[in-house]
């Protein structure tokens, strides 16, 4: 159980990215964070694994306040939380395998990892992760030789190497075409359902949100303006939509009444 309490983040230049944000994420949830660009989604995700230090508030994970962790404790926390990025953030000139093995760094002694020595168990884990993501035959290619969808799978494989309890996905499909977007989100859904990994994911497209999330929070200017579970998302009203995305926003597809049909359509697409 992840509990975020009154989280506030003010950057050095005075920008208020998060304002008093509170919500709970039970284990095994697929939480989607929605909101416009600049609404604080990325900051929120990065506060959870402390890539960004929050200014005020608490984040409790299984009762431990994450915001107070330092040094080795912080690194031990981070290795339990995988992270997937919009730009994949692979080391482009390294091989796929090296990128995947990097997910194990939090568990490896420093001197062994900088001489590229990993033990057999880690190598086996990497094989499994690559297999699971369907990129075994790409293992020895340079990361930048891969297509966007394949790179994101490497990103997920890297996160899997951490044997995470939670995965943070910062707009993981924003740089991908719709078909690839579904395939990547299905991989995440798979991890969520089969391995019970909690997923916190920020997304832009409402149809994807409705298809994959088990609960949703909406951020606007750093504040939580919407919270809902699976059923409520499917019935999201225009008014709720506009509180999240602003008055000028216009809803494209995914109107509450036609959700059923759309879900079928997505199902068919995925089946292809």
């Amino acid at each position, binding site marked *: 159980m992840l509990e975020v309490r009154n989280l506030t983040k003010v950057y050095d230049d005075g920008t208020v990215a998060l304002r008093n944000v509170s919500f709970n994420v039970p284990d095994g949830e697929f939480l989607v964070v929605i909101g416009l660009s600049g609404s604080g989604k990325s900051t929120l995700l990065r506060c959870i694994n402390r890539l960004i230090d929050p200014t005020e508030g608490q984040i409790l994970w299984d009762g431990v306040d994450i915001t107070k962790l330092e040094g080795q404790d912080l690194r031990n926390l981070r290795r339990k939380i995988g992270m997937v990025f919009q730009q994949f953030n692979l080391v482009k000139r390294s091989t796929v395998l090296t990128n995947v093995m990097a997910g194990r760094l939090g568990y490896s002694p420093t001197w062994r990892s900088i001489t590229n020595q990993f033990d057999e168990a880690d190598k086996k884990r990497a094989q499994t992760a690559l297999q699971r993501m369907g990129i075994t035959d790409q293992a020895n290619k340079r990361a930048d030789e891969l297509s966007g969808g394949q790179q994101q799978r490497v990103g997920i494989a890297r996160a899997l*190497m951490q044997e995470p309890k939670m995965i943070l996905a910062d707009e993981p499909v924003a740089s991908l075409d719709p078909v690839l977007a579904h395939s990547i989100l299905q991989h995440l859904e798979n991890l969520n359902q089969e391995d019970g990994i909690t997923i916190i994911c920020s997304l832009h497209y409402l149809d994807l949100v409705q298809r994959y999330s088990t609960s949703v929070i909406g951020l606007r200017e750093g504040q939580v303006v919407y919270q809902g579970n699976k059923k409520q998302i499917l019935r999201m009203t225009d008014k709720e939509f506009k509180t999240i995305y602003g008055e000028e926003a216009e809803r494209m597809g995914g109107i509450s009444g036609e959700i059923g049909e759309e879900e079928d359509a997505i199902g068919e697409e995925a089946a292809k």
Partner: protein
Amino acid sequence: MKTKAQTTEEKPSLVPPVVAGLLSLILPGLGHMLARQFRKGLVLLLVFLSAVGLWIWRINDAARREVGFAAMFKKAIQLKPILLIILILIILLYIVIALDAYKTAGKGKPNSFLLWLLVLAAFFILGWQIGEIRPAVLIRDGKNSLPLLMRVLWPWEKAVHYPEELLIGSADVVIPCTENAEVPERVVEEGDPYVTVTPDCGDLSEISGAEGTKLRMVGSNFAPNDETEIWWVDQVRNEFRYRYGGEYVKVVTDENGSFELDVVIPYRVIPSTGGKGYAVWQVEARQVASVGEPVLSEELKLSVEKMIETIFLGMMSTFFGVILSIPISFIASRNLMSANWFTKTIYMIVRTILNIVRSIESLVWAVIAIIAVGLGPFAGILALTVHSIAALGKLYSESIESIDHGPVEAIQATGANWLQTVWYAVIPQIIPPFVSFTIYRWDINVRMSTVIGMVGGGGIGYLLIQWIRLLDYRSAGIAIWFIAITVAILDYVSSEIRERFI
């Protein structure tokens, strides 16, 4: 920017157009300043003042002996008519600035094309005059440098050397004919060239023109079909080449290496015969014959040796430069040093030092290093190392500053510590620029070391400048060829390596 332009359009000029124009006649640019075009006015004022100042300087320079401006002006214009053209341009510029100010203060935006064209023309002609550019001289006298240039361009005649041997056969002549003259015994070994004369004594020619005794000279065992010179050696060993009718006498040997020739004993103010009453002269046949295979010349060998020294000089200074600049580059990167005021201060100080060191040319560093460690390659290595550290430190730190932060974030998120993050996310990103900058620097260092050599920092430059000073342009040409070949090879190799790493 856009809003600024709009506000200037909206605000009217502070003075009416005519006043602006007149003010610009008093002080060029003042009209623009008061017509809310302050910057343009300032630029025009500075441009005008510097043009006038430069023109006065050139007038002074051209007629420095005259007293009084009027006399100077007259003389300078007479000597350098181009100064008059510049004056006309400056006057035109003065008028056009005033007109432009008039239009600027009025409605609408003036077309200042003519104005800037005049500015450009004035400075171009000033530059022409100051630079003493004389294309006519280049065309007229340039051809004088062609023979020299050819020697530099094709110096390879000096690349090989044919070992030569002087073949000498000589015979004694007693002057005048004396019985029982003491003639030293002569031993001619089998196969050596020898000469006989008949008769073997006689009288000298006289200054009046009366010819001396004619001798039949027969030579053998010389190199076949080769030119042979005839020399006389008098009794005090003075050597002089034999002339007949004002011309040096030469004979060409036949295919057996033999020749026959009539020689007349020449006129000579005879040194004392030492009371013996006669003198023993020798008549010699001399051949310069190349023997054996051609060998590489000393100049070529020296060039190769010094070229190797130069390459290693460049290599070692690059090596030391890289080793020392890598740690420096990390503390000179803004993104790694922005943690607090202390690290920021270090960053500022290091960057400043790097900039100062870099702005001092390696040639100057070489002179300083020579004072410290004396002439030779070590001074060159020191100079180039210092300059390399500064240049590479800057280039490296800039490439560290421009890395993609994404992978760093991603590796941090896996729970990696600082060293692991640097190793996995930073190093792979900076390898390509580091490799390419390093090779680029090696390239520069090898080229620079040729120049460093000219002030005594070792390497081929030292030879080059010496040969140029000795006017030995062929040898200098060899050195230049080696430099060119090495730089070309290095260029190719470095682009290959760079391609492989990026």
